[in-house]
């Protein structure tokens, strides 16, 4: 017997993401999902930029990692609330893990929620978590050819952050190559060049965050 079905396998995951989004909408907060390879500087950028947000903007971070609470510990002094989610062997955060993270936060005391996804350039891109915006980081040491190698990650980005630009000269980084690849993949997302070390460009990222509102 052949049973014909037309059912999205992602329904359950997307439905959970929509539940998360509605819950955050109801609480009046904006959620930004940060995606990148491991070591591109997500945590360092948050340590640097969250204290620069306008006074009264209350922040929280959900940090996804396979193991350890190191990132959450690093962020303790930068955000009012920090929750570490350990995925074990999971290569991306799932909407249900974010739901559990939301359970452990006081949403009424948050204006901005950052989700720091598991460092990975493939799997996290495939899962909506309920966020309002996606920020994708690409650090200079990763190389100027990565946009074309991982196009789906960049196609779905709302903002693209080129990080560790203080290393550009020593690594002979070709920014034009990145822009040429992005011109074919995503012309809607602004590109911000920054260095958490020198502080260059971090204000532009801060301003971008501040301008985002849930739709």
């Amino acid at each position, binding site marked *: 017997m052949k049973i014909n*079905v037309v059912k999205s396998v992602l329904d359950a995951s997307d439905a959970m993401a929509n539940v998360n989004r509605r819950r955050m909408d109801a609480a009046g907060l904006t959620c930004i999902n940060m995606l990148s390879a491991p070591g591109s500087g997500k945590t360092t950028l948050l340590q640097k930029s969250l204290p620069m947000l306008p006074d009264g903007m209350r922040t929280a971070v959900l940090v996804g990692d396979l193991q350890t609470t190191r990132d959450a510990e690093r962020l303790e002094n930068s955000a009012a609330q920090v929750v570490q989610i350990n995925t074990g062997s999971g290569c991306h955060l799932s909407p249900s893990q974010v739901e559990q993270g939301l359970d452990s936060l006081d949403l009424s005391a948050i204006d901005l929620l950052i989700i720091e996804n598991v460092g990975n350039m493939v799997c996290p891109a495939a899962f909506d978590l309920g966020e309002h915006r996606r920020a994708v980081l690409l650090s200079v040491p990763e190389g100027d050819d990565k946009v074309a190698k991982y196009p789906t990650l960049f196609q779905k980005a709302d903002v693209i952050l080129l990080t560790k630009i203080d290393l550009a000269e020593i690594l002979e980084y070709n920014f034009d190559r990145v822009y040429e690849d992005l011109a*074919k993949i995503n012309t809607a997302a602004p590109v911000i060049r920054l260095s958490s070390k020198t502080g260059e460009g971090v204000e532009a990222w801060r301003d971008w965050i501040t301008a985002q509102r849930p739709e």
Partner: protein
Amino acid sequence: MHEMSIAEGLIQSVLAAANQHNATRIERVEIDVGQMRLIVPDAMRLAWQVITEGTIAAGSELIVVEIPMTARCKKCGREFAPKLDEYLCPDCGKADVDILTGDDIILTSVVCDSNEDAESCDKKGTETQ
């Protein structure tokens, strides 16, 4: 390796469809996989083999059909077929699109042994969504 997460969702849909038809064993499952979902068919089949252990779908064949992308330009409305590494609108040259197809994973059919005959199966016709 997000194929295992996908397999977890898939087995639930497959078993639900099979239960509706009192299936006793599942032989074959077919899915349409959007190109954008970056599914590796071999990894998907391996995940399927693992996730179905101990269920009536154990040992079943998983057929993965890749669905190419189509998109609509947000600037000028032109519909076209982008490539994974190129979303340039052929009319206005912007890369700012809504994805129309190729960004979903759809269970399309389940072949199973059942106590019901084929006729009663057709009458019930599991058409959801």
